[in-house]
């Protein structure tokens, strides 16, 4: 591989990172945000493997069962790091998707701006700082409702589906 190929790979990795970060900043759909994260992570992984690549070296696997046969090999450490990073990435992705599913079920939307507005309203209502809060509801009881979904939440998700 020539120098040109390596630079092209670098551009590819950084391009993925940039597109992913731009998506993270700009997108408002929760699902799209998760996709943006996946794209950026793929770019970062490529960058990391690129950092261990050596021209004309072979994969870090000894063939033929002899340790005497020494050939130049690429750096195994970044590869081990990327293995770790890929698995971490998929774990976080599953968690983010589960949160998105619940947010959609509760608020009936996938739009980050709408969701934040609803969340803001809920926080204010829970803290009782809004003037509408009634006296019979103690302020501290509201932030931690019982874990069962309340009828209001089930009703909220109906119109969307």
């Amino acid at each position: 591989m020539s120098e040109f190929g390596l630079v092209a790979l670098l551009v590819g990795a950084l391009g993925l990172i940039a597109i992913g970060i731009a998506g993270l900043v700009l997108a408002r759909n929760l699902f799209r945000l998760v996709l943006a994260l996946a794209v950026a992570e793929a770019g970062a992984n490529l960058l990391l493997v690129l950092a261990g690549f050596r021209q004309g070296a072979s994969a870090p696997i000894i063939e033929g069962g002899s340790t005497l046969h020494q050939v130049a090999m690429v750096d195994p450490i970044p590869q081990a790091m990327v293995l770790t990073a890929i698995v971490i990435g998929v774990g976080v992705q599953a968690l983010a998707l589960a949160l998105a599913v619940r947010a959609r079920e509760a608020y009936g939307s996938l739009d980050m701006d709408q969701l934040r507005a609803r969340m803001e309203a809920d926080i204010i209502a829970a803290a009782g700082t809004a003037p509408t809060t009634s006296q019979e509801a103690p302020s501290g009881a509201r932030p931690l409702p019982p874990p069962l979904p309340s009828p209001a939440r089930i009703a909220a998700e109906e119109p969307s589906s």
Partner: protein
Amino acid sequence: MLTRYGSLLFATGFAFLLFSLFIALPMGEPPTLAGQAILNEAANSVGAANIVTSVVLAYRGIDTLGELSILFAAATAVGLVLGGQARAPRPSKEDGAGGFILQTGVDLLFPLLLVVGFYIILHGHLTPGGGFQGGVVLAAALVLPVLARPEESPSPAALAWVEGLAGAAFIATGLAALAYDHAFLTPLLGAGQLGDLFSAGTLPLLYLAVGLKVGAELAKLLLRLAEEGPAA
């Protein structure tokens, strides 16, 4: 609108900055001080033909332990978020069965995937592959039958036992080294003959634990997300 262009500008600038930083580095000729030292001695001291496996399980074994814990934390957190105990997916609207061909195909695939999964896991110290890749195949083997027969999903309790015990086995193997006056996670049982199936000491055992844990964990994640939520 202004913030939108600002963000785009920021992302482009960030990429350009990174490019100018990385292009100054010796592309294709990295210094690799630690990496080269590992390449020089891994075959003799650890005995795995696949040096990446040596790094993942021996030199940086505790990273792998952390990684398993992250996957466990993510699966636990998904359980916490989605709530309750995992339930079997409802039979789909076309009345359950995904058709004769799908069922037969899955019946044939299931043992095949299991064998391939375990093969990949147990040869992880010799060839490319290992616990993570094999674990994904195992997870696929566990989840595929659910597509054909939604009522026959693997029991969540069994998956929990497999993942808990596999994780404990990894740590226990590490702790066993303490009993022999070694540091935590030192590979035991000697390096063996390079390239043999029974070589690299406890590494294949560790990879087996990793594979089972990853397989159970990922199957759990997939099954939880495959549940028919109230909104779907």
